[in-house]
């Protein structure tokens, strides 16, 4: 601790006073606790450094918990009511058990006893109600956003007694329980939540109930976490409930990708986040651990704008579906760690069904469909109809480093069957501005999205209830509307699952959605000394269960 502080000390005098105060406090604290705890367990101890490419924008819990960078820190500093594992299965955590009524509009959560936030506040029913309320509504006039993914059907929550919470919804909300294990649903001390936004934005003043607490941090630089010795309420699903083993985890921002990996290779850090896929094979051969966990959500693919010619023609869309060689994408751009898509949603999502037949590469079929649709090859090999060339304009997703390479490969594949592909790459801001679902000039919107529950999938596909209207169909496709409504009102999985299967089949058959590969958005390269980490349903690595070996 003293070492780190002095390394970052710049305004010397002030820092020295602070450092020595902190160091004294730490020594006193350590003298008080360490002999009693853990020394008997050989797995205990160790400090790791995790190199990350960004630390995101703000630390206001509601505004930041959804970010793909800050999720790493929140995952160690806070707990959730429910644990969702890599298979999308929900299991007890702070909520020991739960019940729901028949039409999924009322839920009762039973909480663990004796859980405390790091500021000493009890994590009881009233703390949970405070969290549910702010997740749903935020305090927008103060700049504290609601959590966008939280069910909009939320009505209210009541603390029945110290460990029982009842939650009411205005409509069936089957996805509520998985939501509690997801992204933004992090439990924060009510004392922190009462603070104004500017205070909540100071990570050092935020208290969660997680296995680690913030030791020190600096914006855009680093966050150091130290373990909480009295932690005893980890999720059963990870096979450990007591205090963490590692003493500290330091997240350090290193924006250069090559430097992150080289630092781990040089033994100066333990984990490098987001390495390039092409490097993974050689790193494995050098003995480093690599991980490419998938998150629950949509596969990487295109949502087609059905209002833009020629993509208003089902045959053209079907030709696109058949004209892409997905195996070649994995072989060329990625590694065998990446998986073929089986549907429009990732294969670890509960409710997914295998639709691989609809995604088979069949260039002859694609050519036949295009012939039937009236697109014939011109002298330069490009198909035309009424003097118009068959073109597809794509915009690589700027958040996904490999998106452009995939687009380039697909351009070659489609080129062989007479399609002209234009690739227009934009930076993040311009992309956000110009490229939207169903926007004129955007025939194919590249999707990289995680979601809470397969039930929400249907509601974003059309324009009903302000939904995102992915395929610019509005309400024109009656079959899709029907499926959407029956999925949304389903009160049980038995009723819903066959409907979900039908929806997946229909969307792919119609060529509304063109899957490319299952998405991996988080790539980890790890020193072999570090073992035992766990990846949850959002593909975040948790080092709560990890140990350092020599």
């Amino acid at each position: 601790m003293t070492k780190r502080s002095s390394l970052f000390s710049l305004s010397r005098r002030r820092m020295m006073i602070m450092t020595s105060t902190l160091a004294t406090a730490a020594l006193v604290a350590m003298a008080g606790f360490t002999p009693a705890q853990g020394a008997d367990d050989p797995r205990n101890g160790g400090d790791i450094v995790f190199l990350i490419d960004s630390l995101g924008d703000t630390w206001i819990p509601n505004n930041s918990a959804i970010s793909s960078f800050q999720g790493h820190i929140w995952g160690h500093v806070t707990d959730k009511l429910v644990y969702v594992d890599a298979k999308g299965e929900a299991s007890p955590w702070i909520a020991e058990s739960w019940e729901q009524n028949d039409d999924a509009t009322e839920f009762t959560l039973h909480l663990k006893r004796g859980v405390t936030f790091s500021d000493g506040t009890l994590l009881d029913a009233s703390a949970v109600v405070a969290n549910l309320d702010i997740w749903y509504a935020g305090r927008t006039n103060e700049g504290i956003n609601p959590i966008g993914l939280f069910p909009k059907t939320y009505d209210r929550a009541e603390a029945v007694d110290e460990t029982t919470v009842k939650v009411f919804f205005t409509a069936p909300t089957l996805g509520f329980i998985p939501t509690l294990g997801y992204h933004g649903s992090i439990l924060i001390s009510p004392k922190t939540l009462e603070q104004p936004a500017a205070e909540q934005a100071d990570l050092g003043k935020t208290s969660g109930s997680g296995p680690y607490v913030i030791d020190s941090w600096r914006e855009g630089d680093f966050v150091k976490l130290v373990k909480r010795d009295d932690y005893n309420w980890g999720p059963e699903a990870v096979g450990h409930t007591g205090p963490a083993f590692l003493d500290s985890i330091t997240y350090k921002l290193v924006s250069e990708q090559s430097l992150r990996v080289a630092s781990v290779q040089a033994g100066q850090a333990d984990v490098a986040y987001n390495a390039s896929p092409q490097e993974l094979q050689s790193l494995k051969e050098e003995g480093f651990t690599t991980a490419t966990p998938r998150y629950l959500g949509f596969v990487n693919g295109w949502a087609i704008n059905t209002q833009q010619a020629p993509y208003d023609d089902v045959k053209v869309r079907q030709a696109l579906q058949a004209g892409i060689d997905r195996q070649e994408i994995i072989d060329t751009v990625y590694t065998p760690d990446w998986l073929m898509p089986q549907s429009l949603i990732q294969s670890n999502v509960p409710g997914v069904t295998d639709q691989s037949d609809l995604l088979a590469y069949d260039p002859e079929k694609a050519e036949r469909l295009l012939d039937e649709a009236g697109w014939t090859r011109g002298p330069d090999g490009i198909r035309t109809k009424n003097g118009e060339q068959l073109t597809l304009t794509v915009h690589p997703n700027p958040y996904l480093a490999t998106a452009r390479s995939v687009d380039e490969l697909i351009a070659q594949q489609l080129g062989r069957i007479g399609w002209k592909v234009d690739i227009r790459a934009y930076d993040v801001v311009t992309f956000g501005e110009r490229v939207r679902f169903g926007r004129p000039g955007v025939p194919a919107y590249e999707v990289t999205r995680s979601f809470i529950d397969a039930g929400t999938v249907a509601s974003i596909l059309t324009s009903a209830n302000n939904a995102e209207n992915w395929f610019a169909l509005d309400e024109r496709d009656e079959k899709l509307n029907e499926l959407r409504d029956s999925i949304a009102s389903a009160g049980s999985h038995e009723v819903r699952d066959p409907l979900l299967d039908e929806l997946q089949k229909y969307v792919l058959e119609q060529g509304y959605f063109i899957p490319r590969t299952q998405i991996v958005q988080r790539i980890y390269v790890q020193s072999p000394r570090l073992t035992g980490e766990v990846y949850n349903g959002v593909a975040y690595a948790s080092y709560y269960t990890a140990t350092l070996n020599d």
Partner: protein
Amino acid sequence: MSNAYSVYVTKRLLQSVVVILLAYVFTFIVVSILPGDPVTNVLRDPQNGFTEEQIREIIAAQGLDQPIPVQLWSSLSSFLTGDLGLSMRSSRPVATLIAEVLPSTLILASSALGVALVLAFAVAYGTQFLPKRFGQDLLRAFPSLFLSVPNFVIGLVLIHLFGFQLGLFRVIEPNSFWATFFAAIALGIPVSAQIAEVLIANLDNESRQEYATVARGRGLRRARLFAKHLLKPSSLPVVTVVALTIGELLGGSLITETVFGRTGVGSLVQRSVAMQDLPVLQAIVSLAAVVFVLINLIADLVYPLLDPRVKLVGGTRHRGATSTEPLQTLPGR
């Protein structure tokens, strides 16, 4: 000091305030009229799942739905009362954000300036006094070489060589002595090129002057000639170049900070530009304006100390004296 001098100082100070205010207003207008609205972009990111109504509420809460003149006025008036406001991006006080990053950048920039000066003077000395066969001419190529190798390449090479191979420093501790030292070298090398070029040109010029020829004819030792007679007049324009270089040090620090994993003003600017975080950009631009005004003032004050002739010229022209003017007087004499 004389009455004329205090009038001069008052005028210069007023000028400075106007420059800073104009910089403030200009930044505001530029950022406001830039296409793209990152705030709504972030909110509209479908992953966040906000409804249009929620987005409107959030925008209104930040005052971003007001007309630009109204926004400018409220921003400017709080700035004038010393309130830098909250960052739109992180919701933390702008003053805190700047206070956190400033020391690191000041240390890097001043060390880099030190490196640049030492290098520039060493190269310039070499071009004058190294024997021809020991590469006097080769040294003359150094400044263009220094300028043409990109800053980040130097940085990456230094990190791989001294950080990873020799283990002198760790990338995760960018503020340690050695990490700062090598970052200062990476940043100082291109800056030294400009200083060296001006210095070499002036040394060439001065050593052709009569007094230098006379001194050499009388058998004055080369090193003594350099230190005693040539260095002082040749350094004069260096002051101007150094003043101009401060901008480059701050600009170049962005790349160096990124490569070396340092958190400083550069990385704060980068993040704020990406998000069009107006309050932070305003504060930094105003700060930069203050720094430039101060440095130019200092440069003007240093001149008379190095060359008494400047004072005479400056005395009659104090109304509009800027640091570049004395440089223009040089070739004429």
